[in-house]
């Protein structure tokens, strides 16, 4: 006779989850209509697969290898600006890819700062295009993520262990063996797997720094087949390859991917007694300086070049900025309309099988969904006017897994804490949202909305497929300026885009906390 209690909220979540599944499944249908699987894979497809896997593997390995000493140094040193640096490690999450690429070009590009220094020293310059450049940009984005994951691991080592190590006066080699290696063994595979999966579907980096037969990712090949040859059969086939590759990698990685830290809480002070030697101290200082320079120089470059470039910007930049803002706002609205009911649904269930739906965003790539939908829409209507709304929708889907990770745990807490009170008052459905969930989760909703807005405003993905000259977003316009070698104007646009991404994030995040009480 034991019966399950009526859930307080959650029925609309099934509808929202169904909508997400439908968007993705229908795009498969579109792809299936056009893909000629029997045609088999030609040499260029194999080259794209190979390059995608190789660059992802290098990106993952280098990011993690560099993150280990950086995270260790951050974990055991206290210095002025440490909190700010750790906050900055979260910034690549909301930094538009194309902006970072321009920053990296300014520092590492053909006429960049590094090559100028090398030239003065009489050393040969380095090239940022091709595999090097793609991996460099991916490391720029994922080194901070890996560092945060490792730092989280380091801080999970109980303070008592370090106290015990100090009490026993363990030498550094012994501390590594007893405390650090077991930790690395636990965290490193997951961090590497996560970065590998993220890099598999990379598009904007490959578009700007890759290209050519030797440096084309699958995602880029989809774009080229679609945009240059309008070969929908080939684009569909590549999309299916992309899905199989990224999907299976994501599925495998799901077992070892750690919970990634989206929120603050990594600046906890932990007293350490080890690593007081001068060499270790100097080494850590050097590593932190190097790591900060690698992350900060490109950002500074954007700031400097952007300020000079602002007056050079053509007026179309402002128009596309308006488009981007519209896309971002629409994206936030769509995300909240999907993520909140889904979070409600997931929270009222015991285990998070439904969270897997949110993870579709990690394996289903934007260009794949875009291609599928283009094939479906094209016979019925002109897809071009739909470019901006489709971009907003796909951006929202991409942000969904992050939003669910932000919303579900606190929502579970709220529903548990006030479970009996809400049930005794008969608080259900919309009133439960209106009077309990929305006010209690304001801060998290603001944070999720801010992330989505920043991701969306800076996204250069599916819009590149659909857009015509009249319907560009700011990242796409920036890419066009870069392609036309109007570097100053592009830098100005980059600064504007950066300001918009940070501004959107800041407004939403602050808005969620404004006037909120304990």
């Amino acid at each position, binding site marked *: 006779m034991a019966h399950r209690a009526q859930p307080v909220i959650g029925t609309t979540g099934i509808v929202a989850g169904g909508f997400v599944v439908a968007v993705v499944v229908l795009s498969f249908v579109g792809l299936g209509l056009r893909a000629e699987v029997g045609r088999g894979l030609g040499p260029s497809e194999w080259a794209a697969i190979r390059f995608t896997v190789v660059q992802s593997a290098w990106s993952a390995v280098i990011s993690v290898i560099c993150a280990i000493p950086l995270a260790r140094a951050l974990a055991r040193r206290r210095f002025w600006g440490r909190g700010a640096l750790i906050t900055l490690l979260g910034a690549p999450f909301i930094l538009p890819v194309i902006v970072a690429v321009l920053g990296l070009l300014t520092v590492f590009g053909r006429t960049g700062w590094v090559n100028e220094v090398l030239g003065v020293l009489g050393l040969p310059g380095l090239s940022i295009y091709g595999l090097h450049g793609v991996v460099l940009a991916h490391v720029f984005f994922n080194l901070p993520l890996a560092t945060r994951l490792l730092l989280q691991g380091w801080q999970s080592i109980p303070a008592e262990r370090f106290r015990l190590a100090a009490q026993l006066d363990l030498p550094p080699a012994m501390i590594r063996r007893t405390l650090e290696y077991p930790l690395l063994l636990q965290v490193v595979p997951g961090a590497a797997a996560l970065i590998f999966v993220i890099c598999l579907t990379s598009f904007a980096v490959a578009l700007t720094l890759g290209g050519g037969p030797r440096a084309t990712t699958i995602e880029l090949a989809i774009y080229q087949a679609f945009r240059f040859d309008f070969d929908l059969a080939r684009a569909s086939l590549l999309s299916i390859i992309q899905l199989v590759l990224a999907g299976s990698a994501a599925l495998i990685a799901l077992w070892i991917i750690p919970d990634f830290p989206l929120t603050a809480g990594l600046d906890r002070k932990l007293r350490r007694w080890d690593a007081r030697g001068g060499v270790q101290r100097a080494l850590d200082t050097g590593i932190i300086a190097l790591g900060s320079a690698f992350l900060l120089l490109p950002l500074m470059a954007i700031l400097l070049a952007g300020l000079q470039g602002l007056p050079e910007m053509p007026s179309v930049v402002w128009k596309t900025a308006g488009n981007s803002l519209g896309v971002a706002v629409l994206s936030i609205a769509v995300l909240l309309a999907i993520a909140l009911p889904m979070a409600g649904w997931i929270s009222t269930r015991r285990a998070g099988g439904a969270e897997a739906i949110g993870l579709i965003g990690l394996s289903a790539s934007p260009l794949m969904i875009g291609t599928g939908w283009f094939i479906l829409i094209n016979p019925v209507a002109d897809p071009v006017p739909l470019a901006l709304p489709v971009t907003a929708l796909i951006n929202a889907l991409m942000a969904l897994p992050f939003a669910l990770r932000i919303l579900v745990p606190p929502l579970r807490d709220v529903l548990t804490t006030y479970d*009996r*009170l809400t049930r*005794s008052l*008969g*608080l259900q459905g919309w*009133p*439960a949202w209106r009077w309990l969930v929305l006010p209690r989760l304001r801060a998290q909703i603001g944070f999720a909305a801010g992330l989505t807005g920043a991701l969306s405003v800076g996204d250069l993905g599916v819009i590149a497929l659909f857009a015509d000259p009249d319907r560009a977003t700011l990242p796409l316009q920036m890419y066009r300026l870069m392609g036309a070698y109007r570097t100053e104007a592009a830098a100005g646009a980059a600064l504007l885009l950066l300001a918009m991404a940070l501004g959107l994030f800041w407004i939403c995040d602050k808005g969620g906390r404004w006037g909120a009480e*304990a």
Partner: protein
Amino acid sequence: MLRLESIRIAQGDFALEADFEITPGRKTAVIGPSGAGKSTLLGATGGFLPLASGRLWWQDRDITHTPPGQRPIAMLFQDNNLFPHLSIAQNIGLGIRPDLKLTPEDQARVDLALERVGLGGMSARRPGELSGGQQSRAALARVLVQDRPVILLDEPFAALGPALRQEMLDLVQELSAEAEATLLMVTHDPADVRRIVDDVIFVEGGRAAAPQPAKSLLEDPPPALRAYLG
């Protein structure tokens, strides 16, 4: 009349049985050792725990499967009786309508309830801006507007000091007498039993005994109760 018909509540290894009825308008204390199942008994009555078997009746209505909010019951818990993000008036208003679409008459009832518990003029405050005693009063004001024939108290005043707790229990007694409500409260204190209640349900050894008149029971307790009272 609230009737617990051969009910059995099972939670893992723990089980509690009860089979009795409670006369309307009576004030009944639930006493017994820690972990005996006092809160479990109230939780099941309120609809928060499923029954493994048996039926729960209110008058001629079978409320065994009725959701908590639709039972003829208002309940106060040990904690989390108020939403911290809503004003006192909104917290009380939820007792009238869960969607808070209150008519002017409803508003007037909220104000009246606030006056009655001595919180006049505090309607705009948040729970965090009130003292512990005032928060208890606010929760009682909501019980008042809920206007249910049965009131369950699962030690909502446990965190208050002794004097304040007495004050709250006196207020509960007055309010339930005015509303002619049936009161069922968990307590640890024999003094509460003497001062307030008519009947006592003694919970021990997996069984909740039928209510006995408090006076006679305390004067001549059976061995188990004698051991508990010390």
